């Protein structure tokens, strides 16, 4: 039997022969390539929704920042804290300080109805009342257009995601909240984080407008270091004056993103899996027809001494290559169509909208390519085995 070099050269020549015959099989080959491209595009596209949503939620929480809520509350929406409590929280050990005092921001969180630009239908847009340290307790928040609102004045600044998604929030326009009209004076960004979906104003102004007295819903805290969290948490939970829940900001948002991410990922995989099965049948079809149109040629090669293994491997390489081309096309399509596509959805925990952008990450593209390769390999295997088993004499007789 021939040595390995000979074996490889056999594979090489059969593969080349197969690839050169592709123009004669344009129809079937196109159908397979685009079938697989469709699977990969849908897989990558749907998962990019989950990736974008998760990114928006997780970029928001720094490890050295914490959120304090009323115990038993699962989001700011249903939480409540009095001024006396927020003071105790600010004076707790572990909180970072500047010359002006502790780095904390006691905040209010309500929702207002604004029409979505895309549908014109009302959506729950978060409106947050913040204190002077709000920018310092969060990383990455900065004004990108206009200016910061003036403290004590009925003015708002709007997140860059909210401006894009909801109507009537440009700088210079007026936001109507009940009987109040608040001018929009600036736009802020938060590195793609969840704050970009929000509208901010002075907490005092919001307390007045909502008859909230001197109460808040949450306290955002900057810690001395990520390690100071446990000390901070212990001091609050052991304090009999307080009944609060202390979470890291990163965990708080990760927990809120769970339901939606799980839903999208589960549905995305199910859809892509079914599509992959459909495309697999298409790929099998192509490779079977490739084998049947080449019966004579394969028989001739076998008669000349080419091995069964070489036939199988080369047919699988052909199928794999077609699938990879399809996978690359599908990944490219998904990238062009979906990457950075801005939209918003409901965060069920906070009962309000989160704006985010679809993200076609390199990991998703790799996953798409792996799926296409699997379809190609399985789609090539059975036809290749059939080709290798063809009786040589019968095959030659077809001449």
């Amino acid at each position, binding site marked *: 039997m021939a040595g390995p070099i000979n074996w490889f050269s056999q594979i090489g020549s059969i593969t080349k022969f197969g690839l050169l015959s592709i123009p004669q099989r344009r129809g079937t080959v196109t159908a397979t390539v685009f079938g697989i491209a*469709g699977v990969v595009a849908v897989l990558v596209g749907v998962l990019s929704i989950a990736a974008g949503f998760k990114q928006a939620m997780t970029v928001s929480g720094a490890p050295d920042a914490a959120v304090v809520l009323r115990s038993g509350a699962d989001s700011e929406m249903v939480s409540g804290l009095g001024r006396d409590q927020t003071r105790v929280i600010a004076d707790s050990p572990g909180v970072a300080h500047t010359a002006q005092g502790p780095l904390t921001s006691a905040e209010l969180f309500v929702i207002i109805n604004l029409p979505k630009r895309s549908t014109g239908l009302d959506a729950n847009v978060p409106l947050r009342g913040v204190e002077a340290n709000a920018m310092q307790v969060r990383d990455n928040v900065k004004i990108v257009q206009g200016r910061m609102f003036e403290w004590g004045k009925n003015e708002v600044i709007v997140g860059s995601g909210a401006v894009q998604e909801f109507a009537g929030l440009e700088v210079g326009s007026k936001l109507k909240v009940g009987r109040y009209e608040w001018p929009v004076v600036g736009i802020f960004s938060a590195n793609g984080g969840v704050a970009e979906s929000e509208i901010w104003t002075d907490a005092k102004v919001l307390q007045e407008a909502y008859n909230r007295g001197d109460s808040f819903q949450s306290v955002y805290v900057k810690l001395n270091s990520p390690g100071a969290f446990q000390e901070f948490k212990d001091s609050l939970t052991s304090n009999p004056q307080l009944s609060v829940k202390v979470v890291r900001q990163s965990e708080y948002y990760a927990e809120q993103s769970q339901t939606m991410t799980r839903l999208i990922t589960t549905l995305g995989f199910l859809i892509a899996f079914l599509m992959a099965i459909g495309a697999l049948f298409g790929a099998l*079809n192509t490779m079977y027809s490739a084998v049947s149109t080449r019966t004579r040629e394969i028989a001739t090669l076998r008669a000349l001494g080419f091995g069964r293994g070489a036939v199988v491997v080369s047919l699988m390489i052909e199928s794999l290559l077609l699938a990879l081309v399809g996978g690359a096309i599908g990944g490219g399509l998904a990238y062009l169509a979906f990457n950075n596509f801005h939209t918003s959805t409901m965060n069920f925990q906070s009962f309000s909208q989160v704006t985010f952008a679809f993200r076609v990450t390199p990991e998703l593209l790799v996953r798409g390519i792996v799926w296409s390769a699997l379809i190609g390999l399985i789609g090539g295997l059975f036809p290749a085995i059939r080709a290798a088993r063809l009786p040589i004499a019968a095959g030659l007789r077809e001449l």
Partner: protein
Amino acid sequence: MDNFKSLQVRLLTSAPACPRAMKFFHLIWCNLKRKKLRTSLTLLSILVAFILFGFLMAIKQALAGGVSMAQQDRLIVRHKVSIIQMLPESYQARMERIPGVALATHQTWFGGIYQDPKNFFMQNPVVPEEFLAMHPEIILSPEQKKAWLQTRTGAIVGRKTAERFNWKIGDRVPIQSTIWAQANGSRTWEFDIVGIYDGGKKGTDTTPLFFRYDYFDENRQVNQGKGLVGWYTIRVKDPTQAAAVAKLVDQEFENSSAETKTEPEGAFVQAWASQIGNIVLIVAVILGAVFFTILLVTGNTMAQAVRERTGELGVLKAIGFTNAQVMSLVLAESCLLTVLGGVLGLGLAFLIVPVLAKALSGLLPMFFLPTRDLLTGLGLSVVLGLVTGIFPALQAMRLRVADALRRM
């Protein structure tokens, strides 16, 4: 080839009593059978496409289907700024005085957790008699209704949730509210299950639990909005006057501390669904990708089939088949393939969706496949057959007998 010849003989010699359509059916069927492997692979990919179709339609129904359940004669009244702001209980009497309003009743979001936050389902305090009158789709037996009216701590729960947690009538269930504390500071509320209701329509959501507002209002903390309710539902006397009545309601409360926004139940549900995202568009894009793929696969199969059969089609023409007949034969073949795949796929989807629905009941309570979408799918399979068959069919029709026979 042998297959074809024997058929041809049967075709030409069969008794005149045999209906023509049946004769053609045999021919079409045998043509599909001649390349069994190719036909079954194509059939399978069509089948998968229609399972996906059914599956996506069920997702759409679950996320955006509430609109079709909405009643024409019901309006939802909420606080103008947002639904989280509450409305005074006293609005009810004022609403009922507005001309055109038949009935008004309120609900409030309780936000409760049973054992684990993952076990999400809705629980709302309601006024039992008004609530049942307003919602005829909630089917409760007269004895259970009577028990509810007599039990202050009584609650009724939908069949789905009752089965999920294995609750029986007489059970006492503790539910922890994320929002409402009782006067004694506890957030755990206990309810006695006095009734299990069924849905009057296929899409009726039977996951919520409803309990008595009087029990709720009496026990919630004083500073937590006593006398305030979440939103109102109104029944109008004449559905054609719904828009006018909605306007009157909003006018009634204009310039008060709690202004309202009133809209038809359908519009309210639609706005709610669109908050999740543009589901209809996403489903349409995915289905587009799926059917484009299947179009390629099936179209390719038919094109191959016609190409292989050029000679035989020439024979058919030579023995007197008209161009139209040849074209119909090819079209019928592709339609038979797609309709067969469609029926099998939709059938499988119809069997699978209820199984998935059980698994997803916490996440998507309204996950089911509506009959309307089954019919749409069936129609779609015919269209798919025509579209994939048309080019090969035209090719077959245009064949010139002499050219075709030369290829025999």
